[in-house]
């Protein structure tokens, strides 16, 4: 109960968006939000909790439900550390004497942690190895993301060409369309760079041995992403959001601005100061560039290079969202159920910065109400961006609606985190 109260604690509106948020109130009534909500309520979209410490009973069961082309759970950290379950199991084990129950319990916890590190390292290698062919096809450092955005554009143009005579669409209908990459490959291509953390990770484990787990909890950035424990993950998510929002009113990319009509203003990345760009890029979870390079760009005052990086993030989120929405909303979804992994849901929320300081995303995803809250935030975010776009229910392409690389869409939008009506 206490944790639930923490999750839905009273929301304090920031002074920047308080008076100007005219459009955001209507997001709940948009056709896209309703369609997504229907999908969730009718069970077409399911959130699958694939994490269970007792691997013998559940892993095969859960992977059956996972839609293979959407989720890449092997590249994401665990959402729940089964500390209580392990201790309970030891407590109930009659073979373990009463006097050594405490020590055995903690020993098993340590063993579980080491096992999870081992699986994490193996998975990091697997992701790196399995994506080597895709890497040749899609080199994200050399404009492959822009190509994918053009493919999304092509799909939008196709819809325009095929429905040119029709008036505004009212229902959210998505036809299954082939795309050159599936979501799993896309996210794994972004996450494959985690392999470069392994040498440093090994060195730390070699030097500090048992204490290394403690170090990774306090310095989660040095740990490969899928080896993170929920505690470390919370520290990491808190540091990202702190870096993005800063102290109240001092936002990383500047405050979200609205036009006179109440719509979000267009802002180009070239209008954002270098410091702010650097701040945003260093606080993006799956950065596509090492932080030292970003630091060099900042010191060289190279706006162009920093803008290129932020454009890549913008494009990645656009393609990722588009693929997810296509999978969830495609018309034959009535027969096929789409399962989104709990880990992926948490990662979506983290990357899109749809949480506040103190929100424990892993705890929320393992709780039914928390899960609903996370989904609502994600649906609101998608409704804001994609409602009335031609891919779903409108007449405009995404770039026609928002302009070219509109940085306002990457800004922290505290309105999307309002969840107290659930």
């Amino acid at each position, binding site marked *: 109960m206490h944790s639930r109260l923490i999750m839905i604690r009273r929301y304090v509106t920031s002074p920047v968006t308080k008076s100007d948020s005219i459009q955001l109130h209507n997001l709940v009534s948009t056709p896209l939000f309703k369609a997504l909500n229907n999908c969730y309520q009718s069970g077409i979209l399911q959130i699958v909790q694939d994490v269970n410490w007792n691997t013998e009973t559940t892993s095969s069961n859960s992977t059956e439900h996972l839609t293979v082309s959407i989720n890449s759970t092997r590249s994401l950290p665990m959402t729940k550390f089964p500390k209580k379950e392990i201790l309970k199991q030891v407590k109930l084990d009659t073979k373990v004497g009463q006097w050594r129950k405490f020590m055995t319990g903690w020993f098993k916890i340590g063993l579980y942690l080491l096992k999870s590190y081992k699986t994490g390292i193996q998975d990091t290698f697997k992701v790196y190895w399995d994506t080597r062919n895709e890497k040749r096809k899609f080199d994200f450092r050399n404009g492959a993301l822009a190509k994918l955005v*053009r493919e999304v554009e092509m799909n939008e143009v196709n819809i325009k060409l095929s429905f040119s005579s029709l008036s505004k669409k009212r229902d959210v209908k998505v036809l299954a369309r082939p795309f050159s990459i599936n979501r799993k490959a896309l996210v794994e291509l972004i996450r494959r760079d985690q392999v470069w953390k392994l040498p440093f990770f090994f060195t730390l484990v070699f030097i500090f041995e048992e204490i290394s787990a403690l170090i990774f909890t306090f310095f989660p950035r040095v740990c490969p992403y899928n080896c993170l424990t929920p505690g470390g993950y919370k520290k990491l998510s808190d540091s990202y959001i702190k870096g993005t929002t800063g102290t109240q009113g001092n936002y990383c990319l500047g405050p979200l601005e609205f036009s006179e009509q109440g719509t979000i203003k267009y802002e180009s990345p070239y209008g954002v100061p270098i410091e702010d760009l650097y701040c945003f890029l260093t606080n993006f979870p799956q950065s596509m560039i090492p932080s030292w390079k970003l630091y060099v760009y900042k010191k060289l005052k190279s706006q162009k290079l920093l803008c290129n990086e932020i454009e890549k993030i913008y494009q990645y989120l656009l393609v990722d969202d588009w693929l997810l929405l296509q999978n969830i909303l495609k018309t034959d979804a009535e027969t096929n159920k789409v399962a989104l992994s709990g880990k992926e849901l948490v990662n979506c929320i983290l990357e899109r910065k749809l949480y506040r300081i103190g929100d424990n995303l892993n705890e929320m995803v393992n709780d039914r109400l928390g899960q609903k809250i996370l989904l609502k935030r994600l649906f609101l975010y998608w409704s804001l961006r994609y409602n009335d776009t031609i891919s779903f229910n409108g007449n405009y392409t995404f770039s026609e609606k928002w302009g070219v690389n509109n940085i306002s869409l990457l800004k922290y939008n505290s309105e999307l985190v309002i969840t107290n009506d659930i």
Partner: protein
Amino acid sequence: MQRFVNRFVSTPRISRKFQEFFPKKKTINRVLFQLDTRLTYREMYPIFLHVSQTTNEESISLKKKFPYIKSSDIMQMRSALITLRMQNKFVHKDLLVMEDRLLNIAAELGSNDAISILSFKVVHEHEKENVEYKDENDVETANRFIKKLYARNHHLTIKLIGDLFFEHKTFEKAEKYYREFLKLENSTKIAGEVYGKLGEIQIKQINGFLKAENSWLKSIELLEIERSSRWYFLLAKLYLSSEPMRAKALLEKCASIGFKESFKTLGFLELNYFQNHERANEWFKLGMEIMDLECFFGFFDCCLKVGNIVSARNCLESLKKLGSDDNRKTIINTFFESRKDSMKLLEKA
């Protein structure tokens, strides 16, 4: 000494008119190098002179006078003149006449390319119902030639058939002939043109967005900027929302050869996306020189952003003067309506 006298005596008299309109040796040499011609300037010059001084009837004697000449050389001479015309963006009446004469001579010497071009010219003129080509025999002959050349898989004829369908907006057939041409020839300059036009057909088709991109990329790879500026521009438009930096580079290339539409697009891109107001100002100024109305609008916005009140006022006055034209009146009035607030501020300042 004797050599000098001989040369002086053997050199035909050059009319002053020819000297005036014919390009300089250095310029021609540069083009000949680009085209990698078989003949040198020294061998070509007397032919140019001969063609300019004689009429069509006398052209048969050309082979006797210059026995080393081939029909392909005449076509190369013609393409040298065309290249120069495109590079300079200047059409000289006499040079145009010379091009036509060279084409006729090449056809008489048996160049299939020349025959094909002339045949299609006849077909075009007939379609336009030109008085000169009302003779049905000419059209029949032209059609016969086209059929024969097509049967022999003549590359240029296939391309020109595609062009004819393209002009008539029968895109499916045009695409079919273009593809046929590209199977035969895909790395020449003509192939570059075909790729460009193929891209224009593909962009209108479902799933043709990325195909068009590839076609235009090949086109600009094979052709020089003067002949492919249109496809540079279209490619830039395609990249505008996904890769603005790349689009900017392509547009700058278009602007470097004075492609009219590129100025306003570049200006607005610099103004709204790259936020480089000075550069935007320069592009708009260039556009205003060729009386592009949208460049006036952009320049006004740019002046307001920079705080250049005097230039903004001058721009407004120019726009008011341009507003007297009925065609532009509605657009200018809409612009004034949308900039009401800034105009009021300008009056107060």
